């Protein structure tokens, strides 16, 4: 089956802009807000949103960081091939802050659960909000509720949602692969 494009370049731009305006609506000048991307793909999205927010509202004082959740995964030693650790780069404490946690695709919710554990090391935030570009519905294995969603899709477990980023040499778009595409 041909891969289905969920978001093309134009729609992608629109979605990113909408997410940014939603964030501004809820966070005003971002004085007490930090944005944290989950490694590896959430970081790309977090940076994109950070840059876009700066463009829309140059005066905001937003900090952003990257969070690696490898050591907090609940499937360590249960996978055939272990996951290679990535870099956590958070140069600030999140104690008392509002954290916008960013990832590209929400699937089982387990990554987000691990991220909650990983965030503990940086303090107790006032609140954590989840932002995802793509929410795959009906696939959650833990109760996680995103506050900002780029697009919700219905997909079955054997399908894959692939977000292509400009840094990979591809234009920004989101594709739905079925397992027979490989």
């Amino acid at each position: 089956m041909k891969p289905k494009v969920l978001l093309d370049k134009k729609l992608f731009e629109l979605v990113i802009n909408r997410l940014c305006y939603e964030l501004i609506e809820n966070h005003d000048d971002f004085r007490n807000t930090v944005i944290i991307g989950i490694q590896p793909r959430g970081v790309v999205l977090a940076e994109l949103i950070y840059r876009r927010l700066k463009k829309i509202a140059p005066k905001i004082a937003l900090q952003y960081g990257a969070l690696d959740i490898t050591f907090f995964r609940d499937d360590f030693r249960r996978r055939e091939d272990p996951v290679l650790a990535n870099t956590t780069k958070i140069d600030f404490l999140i104690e008392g802050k509002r954290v916008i946690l960013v990832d590209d695709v929400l699937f089982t919710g387990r990554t987000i659960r691990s991220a909650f554990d990983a965030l503990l090391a940086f303090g107790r935030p006032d609140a954590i909000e989840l932002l995802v570009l793509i929410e795959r519905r009906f696939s959650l294995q833990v109760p996680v509720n995103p506050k900002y969603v780029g697009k919700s899709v219905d997909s079955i477990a054997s399908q894959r949602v692939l977000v292509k980023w400009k840094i990979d040499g591809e234009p920004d778009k989101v594709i739905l692969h079925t397992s027979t595409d490989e």
Partner: protein
Amino acid sequence: MNNSLSVKHLLGIKQLTPEDIQLIFHHAEKFKKVINQPIKKVPSLRDITIANLFSENSTRTKLSFELAEKRLSADIVNFSSSGSSVKKGETLIDTVNNILSMKIDMVVMRHSSPGAPHFLKENTNTVIVNAGDGTHEHPTQGLLDSFSIREKIGDLKGKKVAIVGDIKHSRVALSNIFCLQKQGAEVMVCGPATLIPRHIKELGVQVEYDLVKAVEWADAVNMLRIQIERQASSDKEVPNFPSLREYSNLYQLNKEVLIKAKNKPLILHPGPINRGVEITTELADGEQSVVLQQVENGVAIRMAVIYLLASHIKR
């Protein structure tokens, strides 16, 4: 980069591939970040139990392993042969098998006999981490020394490292030689002829008897401790050097040596330091010294090793 080690145990650097070493360093960098966070702990090994078997004296290594295990959330039991049934004549295999029947997943061991970890690996069913076996290998020390040099002066390929002092009795020296060579560094050993093993050149290292020349040549010098406890213990044995004073006259790293060599290499010491014997306090605490970073990196390296080995444990 491979995602897992090619070995199931860490017996020595000799068994590791260059890719294994890079994988350990990759994870050690991440764990170094973890141990510098306000909460210095990750839950990865919460269902793993580790026994630390130390049948030789140790402060740094034992503490460092214990900390590494705790930072990974493993459960640990400590065992030292003084005050145990080993004193009643229990064999090493029996001791370990008894410990293992208490559902232990990994054994970190230090032993005075070279090859003891290899022996246990063959005769027991557990993951073994060598924390120093006699005068043979001390792999985690070799790794953390390389990691500390790399942190300061970058990739070790083509870099020159001199190991100075008691090469003959040093497991640190052998692990360092293997580890450095696998990363493409040039290695020189330096010390009195009596403390340099006769066939060491076969490992592909240079031998130098003049400290000034070694320091002049090196990008980093690793000053080993004179192992007073392993020198001639009775009047019948021939001592390796006449006196500590004579040793330090010839092989002490001090300011004068650096001036004569016109070089300021990075200075490492695996500890514990005999201050005023192999190195002066001034240099041990000086700006070229990475002695304390070595200790910090030791925890990160051991976390990486234990984490990567534990990923092989299946239930």
